[in-house]
């Protein structure tokens, strides 16, 4: 995997909300029949977390499972421990039909903080942000690009996009959160 320590660019902006590119996180995509008890149990055993309900996340101590589709999970762990977790998952899912991929280098995570996060995202996504509660996750789009995001706190959102479009998404968020640009409709 890439060594981000020296090469990483800083993406930081403070307008109506704070937009910041998160430090590299370990990301694993798991595809498989999540209804199968062996797969379900294997994931729970490895990550020591409950299986997230539809369109939610479950998280504890820096480990997170995000629901992406009926047959797909995005698992977030410490960047340095990805390989270890993949090994563990492979061991606990042995004999099952599944796919594991290390996508840490393929995705970027933005951290959005501030009272107006819902309104900033509302400018580009068709999701009704008023209905999104803490620990809710949605896979949707921002402008014309696919993104996924989840509510960490009432004023904090983590947004995942493809790493190749990091700069575009950052600039988009920058414009969308320019000072005095929010309608102040939600809250």
């Amino acid at each position, binding site marked *: 995997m890439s060594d981000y320590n020296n090469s990483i660019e800083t993406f930081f902006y403070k307008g109506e909300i704070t937009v910041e590119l998160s430090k590299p996180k370990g990301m694993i995509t798991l595809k498989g029949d999540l209804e199968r008890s062996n797969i379900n149990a294997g994931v729970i055993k490895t990550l020591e977390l409950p299986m997230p309900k*539809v*369109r939610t996340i479950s998280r504890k101590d820096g480990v997170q499972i995000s629901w992406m*589709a*009926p047959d*797909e999970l995005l698992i977030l762990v410490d960047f340095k421990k990805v390989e270890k977790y993949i090994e563990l998952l492979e061991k606990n899912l042995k004999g099952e039909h599944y796919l594991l991929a290390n996508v840490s280098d393929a995705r970027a995570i933005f951290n959005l903080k501030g009272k107006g996060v819902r309104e900033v995202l509302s400018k580009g996504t*068709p999701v*009704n942000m008023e209905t999104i509660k803490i620990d809710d996750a949605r*896979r*949707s*789009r921002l402008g014309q690009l696919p993104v996924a995001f989840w509510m960490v706190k009432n004023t904090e959102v983590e947004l995942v996009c493809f790493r190749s479009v990091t700069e575009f998404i950052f600039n988009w968020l920058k414009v969308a959160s320019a000072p005095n640009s929010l309608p102040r409709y939600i809250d």
Partner: protein
Amino acid sequence: MLVILCPYCGVEAEETELTAGGEAHLERFGPSSSDSEFENYLFMRKNEKGITFERWHHTYGCGKWFHAARCSMTMEIFGTYPAQTSKPPKKLISMIKKKRPEWGEGK
């Protein structure tokens, strides 16, 4: 603007989150079929005025294909159901018949 419920992730998805996939429940005619059957399968679509069954793809969401029953005239969505079927569910059909007694199941 259509708002369609994705039966897989339960999202009331708005039209721009979805991709239309054309007529649903097509029967495939492969290599052993006659030319006219194959042509029919490839090109001929019903394009009905009234109740249609169509395929939709939740592109900017869970990425699953599903089916929807829609009225092409009033844009009313009667219901959606997973794509692992070759016929619309009976429940949905009886619901549509109740709402539109004049409908003859597309015949």
